């Protein structure tokens, strides 16, 4: 069953959601921040919600450099509600969750974070459907909101989502239910899942790895971390010790496979020394290794990488080349 809230009552819903002062919203085109009365639902925020699950700095444990003293684990505390999540970003969290299945910190954050998705107008850079993502399915979300003219059509997807429905919401009439269904059907009619996945699952690994196209396609790449840091599905991390005197905190932070240091061994050897090798690894991970392991590509088609790449690299050029091997 779906619910209806007049759009003018959105603010009072947000105030209600923020009663524990833990509401996060897209506050502008850059990314998600604590709710301060402003919410940006028109376009795609540059940064995804990934940082609330794999934060820029996650303390893992604290320690003292004294023999016999056992380190104390740190766990994230507090609950969060994130409103205005892009359905593709939420799907991305479900893809990461498979890899972080046994990770204490990630799972703790997953348990304590409610995600309320809002469907936005499809942008030119969007290609979620090609990656097999259906925003109307609301994977990973607790509530899905479809703004339609001057109302919000609200679909609770989980029990905890149901508890957060706005007080002023009423049950949707048959007409309003139809509005939702029509929007969903007309979106799904144009949806087209790329046939590449079935093909790539069957492609042999080595010919793909050794294909000659990598050289030309990786040439313009600067090996910066823009694509990996903006990507809602890239989950690689670095671990650092922040030490002052004899005390320290071990923290986890995002890392990028594009960086030379990422694959540097303590011995000095680096298995991915060339820019080409690092470039190739990113795409092989997303569209071969992960695909083989979990049956889906590690991409939700948000298009942020294509939008922001300073070198003008487009994921589809690489995908097409991979599909031709």
């Amino acid at each position, binding site marked *: 069953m779906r619910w209806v809230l007049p759009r003018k009552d959105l603010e009072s819903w947000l105030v209600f959601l923020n009663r524990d002062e833990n509401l996060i919203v897209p506050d502008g085109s850059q990314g998600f921040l604590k709710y301060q009365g402003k919410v940006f639902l028109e376009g795609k925020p540059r940064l995804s919600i990934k940082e609330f699950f794999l934060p820029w700095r996650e303390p893992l444990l604290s320690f003292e450099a004294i023999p016999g003293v056992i380190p104390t684990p740190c766990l994230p505390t507090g609950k969060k509600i994130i409103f205005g999540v892009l359905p593709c970003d939420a799907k991305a969290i479900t893809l990461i969750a498979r890899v972080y299945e046994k990770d204490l910190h990630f799972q703790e954050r997953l348990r304590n974070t409610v995600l309320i998705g809002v469907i936005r107008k499809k942008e030119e850079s969007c290609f979620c459907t090609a990656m097999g993502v259906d925003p109307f399915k609301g994977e990973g979300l607790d509530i899905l909101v479809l703004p339609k003219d001057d109302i919000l059509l609200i679909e609770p997807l989980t029990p905890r989502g149901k508890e957060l429905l706005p007080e002023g919401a009423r049950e949707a009439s048959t007409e309003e239910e139809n509005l939702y269904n029509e929007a969903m059907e007309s979106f799904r009619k144009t949806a087209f899942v790329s046939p590449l996945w079935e093909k790539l699952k069957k492609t042999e690994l080595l010919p793909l790895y050794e294909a000659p196209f990598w050289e*030309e396609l990786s040439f313009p790449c600067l090996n*910066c971390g823009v694509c990996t840091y903006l990507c809602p599905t890239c989950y690689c991390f670095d671990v650092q010790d922040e030490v002052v005197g004899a005390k320290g905190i071990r923290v986890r932070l995002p890392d990028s496979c594009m960086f030379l240091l990422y694959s540097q061994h303590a011995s000095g050897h680096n298995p991915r020394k060339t820019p080409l090798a690092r470039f190739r690894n990113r795409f092989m991970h997303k569209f071969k290794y992960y695909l083989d392991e979990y049956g889906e590509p590690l991409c939700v088609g948000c298009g942020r990488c294509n939008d922001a790449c300073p*070198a003008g690299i487009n994921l589809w*050029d690489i995908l097409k080349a991979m599909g031709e091997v």
Partner: protein
Amino acid sequence: MNSLTFKLREKARQILKEGQAEAILAFTEGPTPFKPRLALIKSPEEAERIVWPGFSGLNPLTLWPKIKDIKTAIFATGCISRTLAVLIKEKQLEREEIYVVGVPCPGLLDPQKIPDKPEIKKIDEKEEKIFFETQKETKVFLRRELLRETCLSCRHPSPTLYDEILEGESLTPSKIPFSRVEELEKLSSEERAYWFFEKIVSPCIRCYACRNACPLCYCPQCFVDDSRPQWVGKTRDPIDNLLYHLVRAFHLAGRCVNCGSCEAACPLGLPLQVLNQKLIKEAFENFTYEAGLDLESPLLFDTYDEKDPDDFIVTAKRKTGG
């Protein structure tokens, strides 16, 4: 077609046929009109892919380390030719290794300056006018409305170093090269610190696009990547972000040519070039030095003169004076 694109293609074909170079490092058509992409063009037929960069602010010389054992030509605007001069003087490449076609630069454009960006199918530039073709209509903008901040502050739009030069008119050299810096200098030190934290330090995600897009950031191992000793923390802690940006800016003091590749590459659109411009201003005002204007004069840090100003050395008197 953009008249500069036409000229570049014609020249590229000629160079590859006549053999002044075996390859050309140039922008080619990218996935969208805003995203031209660098490529190494090796045949006259491929030269048809070349475009004038327009909306890409990337300095092509940043890819120079990837080019090996092939005599390469490059189209050089003012800032690109100055970059080249700095690289040659710093012994990063030999003058003979590269064939330089000078291009009088009309200025590059900033996609962020387009008001409510429509879905653009095609972009055309004709002298002072920029045409955007959308599905329905053609919108016209004036070049100066869309010029990048770094181009607005450019003192040397014409190439300073070349083997041959294309005909054409370049942008008028800026009369307000340091306007962005001067705006900030008017503020109190607290206000400046606030600006720095709000505009650069806090939002920066440390993706290092600015460093990697900089052709003069060529250290084989950057100080941020050192782990023994570790000079700077790797998280987005404000102090570490601050240290990264300040050290990078200082490392480019007297070297930065104001190409703005760093600012263009930033995925968050942070005003990074302002830091470099402050140091360009210091070098200019204290030592009348501008990087990369010729191949003969020594590098800023290679010179010493007894008359050099030394009032930047913080003394007790200056400290109390603020």
